Structures are given as structure tokens and as C-alpha cells.
């Protein structure tokens, strides 16, 4: 499900909620928190390699977005604007982790996979191996992979979100593919 079609009839649009919050109804901000927390937590978890770090990054980004809400030029595109705040936070956290070492739960391949019980041990193993392999990509390669294969966005949609060209994104993705193939050769056949 894409952010643009999250709004169900009878639910307020992002723009309506943003304008209400800016008018002083602070509690309405929780509508946006609930609307986007899980899907963006998944993005952050894949980018940071840790659910705990993802939750912290998401909380920081949501609070920062509230503080800067009056700078959101297009309230109906709150999701796209918020994504950039979270993205900047995640990249900053990656730079910090590069200095101090990975978070503890990264070793446990911590993104939960509730569907794995019926999917078989082999699929679970592949999923875990892929998650770990993703952590060896550059943050930029990993982001493209996550947006393409986890969020299932097209290159054009990723370009619109990140401000990169489609050609640059593909080149980055191809390098990531090559790297992943080398790391996951045991799962290839």
C-alpha cells in the first residue's frame, strides 16, 4: 500500500490533519503517527539493521516533523516530506554506527517475520541471510534495495522521493545486486 492511497474515505486526509495540528489541535498529530509508524519503522529497520534503533529513529523523526510542521509546504504530501526527515535521521545514525559499531540486536537479524512459521525453515533462513547481507551494502545501496524490494516502489517513485536520477539509482542497485549475489551464493541454486 502506498502512502498516497492510505487515506480511506471518511478518514481525514494528511493535509486536513496537518492543518488542524498547525491550528493548535496537537492531539490530532497522533493520527499521522498511527498512519505511518509501522511502514516507516520497517524502512528504518532495514536501513539501520536493528528494530530498536529503528524505533528510536522513527520517534526522533516524528517529533522533529512536528516541530517543523509549519515548514511542510504541501500538507497533503506529509508522507513524502516526513520520509525525507526520517531518511536524513537514518543516514546520520548509520554514520554514527559506523564509528561505534552495530547495535546488539543487529546480530540477531531482528526484523520480525511473523509469516515465517508457515513459510518453512528454508525461506526463513534465506530471509535472515538476506537481511544480514543487506547490512554490508553501503547505506545508499541498501536504501535503494529497501525501497525497491521491501516498499516495492518503482525506480521513478524512488527518484521522486530521494531526488536521485533513475540512472543513478539503477547503477547503485546493480552494484548492490552484485555484492548480494556474492554473499548469498549458497542460497542461489
Amino acid at each position: 500500500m502506498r502512502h498516497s492511497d492510505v487515506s480511506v474515505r471518511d478518514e481525514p486526509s494528511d493535509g486536513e490533519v496537518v492543518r488542524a495540528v498547525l491550528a493548535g489541535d496537537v492531539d490530532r498529530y497522533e493520527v499521522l503517527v498511527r498512519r505511518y509508524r509501522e511502514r516507516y519503522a520497517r524502512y528504518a529497520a532495514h536501513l539501520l539493521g536493528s528494530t530498536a534503533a529503528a524505533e528510536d529513529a522513527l520517534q526522533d523523526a516524528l517529533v522533529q516533523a512536528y516541530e517543523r510542521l509549519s515548514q511542510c509546504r504541501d500538507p497533503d504530501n506529509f508522507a513524502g516530506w516526513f520520509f525525507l526527515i526520517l531518511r536524513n535521521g537514518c543516514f546520520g545514525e548509520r554514520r554514527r554506527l559506523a564509528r561505534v559499531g552495530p547495535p546488539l540486536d543487529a546480530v540477531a537479524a531482528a526484523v520480525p517475520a511473523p509469516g515465517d512459521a508457515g513459510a518453512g525453515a528454508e525461506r526463513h533462513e534465506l530471509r535472515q541471510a538476506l537481511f544480514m547481507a543487506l547490512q554490508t551494502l553501503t547505506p545508499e545501496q541498501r536504501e535503494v534495495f529497501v525501497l525497491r524490494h521491501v516498499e516495492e516502489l518503482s525506480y521513478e517513485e524512488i527518484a521522486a522521493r530521494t531526488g536521485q536520477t533513475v540512472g543513478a539509482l539503477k547503477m547503485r542497485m546493480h552494484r548492490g545486486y552484485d555484492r548480494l549475489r556474492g554473499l548469498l551464493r549458497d542460497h542461489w541454486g
Partner: protein
Amino acid sequence: MTDRLDPLVMRVLDGDLPLEALSPALRAEAEAARRVFGAPDRAPMALSPDFDARVMAAVRARALRRPGAARRAVAWLVAPREVRVVVRPWMAGVLAAAAALVLLFARPETPATGGVAVRFVLHAPEARSVALAGTFNHWDSGATPLVRSEGGLWAATLVLPAGEHEYAFVVDGERWVPDPAAPGVDDGFGRRNSVLTLSDAGRSM
């Protein structure tokens, strides 16, 4: 097996080439790649049960530190009574097609609930329309049109509360032009917003 994917397989993964266009060997390679790269978990991540409460507690704490919306609204309605003019240095030539001046009018003793009259002027002789969008009008590019006068000057006067305001001019409804005479700040989308900081005395800080 090398660790590099065949360029044709890459094109299939990119959606630029149908799987059927590949030879049987490359097709098997592409199918394996789709299986492996398609394996990540797409289920929403479970967050701590108190996540919403923590975020909203932090948000409400910050809301308490902000000036209230009502106070801001009052500030908008209060016009200054006596004027003193401060003209920003105009950095000519920063923009070839457009240049701006911001003129500030205010009493030095303007109370906190008062306002500072700010005249925004943009020199844009080729423009068909010019508007002002900023934090003071929720970036509504239709809320504050500038009026054209002789010499290609567009102008509007607003009464703004003390504090920091980000803004940009919107030319012809689509081109966002920062004020060349004001400091700028990244807007998070790779563009620049201009920043105007007003004290209660109407000074640009």
C-alpha cells in the same frame, strides 16, 4: 559461477526486459535472483506498545513551549503604530531574473503581542504573477499575492509576529525563488528557504 549478474539479468530485474527475452540459462539466473532479492520481510514492523504514547508525550511537551496559535493570530491582527525603517542590504546580481528587498517597519517598543510590518518586494519584470509563501501562511502559495507596480516591482506588506519566519517567493505559480538579501536554510527538499528573524522591536536579527 561469477559473483556478477549478467547485464541482461539486471535489465529483467529492473523491469526493462521481459523474462522471456532471455536464454534458458540466463532465465534460470534471473528467476533465482528474483527469488533471493524478493525474500525480504514486508510485514509491518511491530513497535513497542507504548510507542504512540512516547511520541505524543514528546510532542505535547514541545507544544507547551511554543507560543499559542491564538497569540500568533492576535499578533497578525495588530498593526504597528509608528514606523522606523530598516532596509536590508540588497545583494544585486545574485539572481538575474529576480531580486528582492524586505523592508521592516516597527516601533522599537512594539510589545510581544504586537506585530512588525514587513514589506516584501520582488523585482521580477518578466513575471506574470508573484506570491509569497512561508511559515506564516502555511506555505500556501495562493494566500499572499504580491501586487505589481511600475518598473516590474511586486510588493506586499504583512504584519508578522516576532520570531523566525521562513519564506520564498512563488513566481508564476511554479518557480520558488529565495530572497537573495536574506540568509537561507535548506528546506529538506534540496531547495533554499529564506529566513527572516524579527525581534519584538522589529529589528531583523
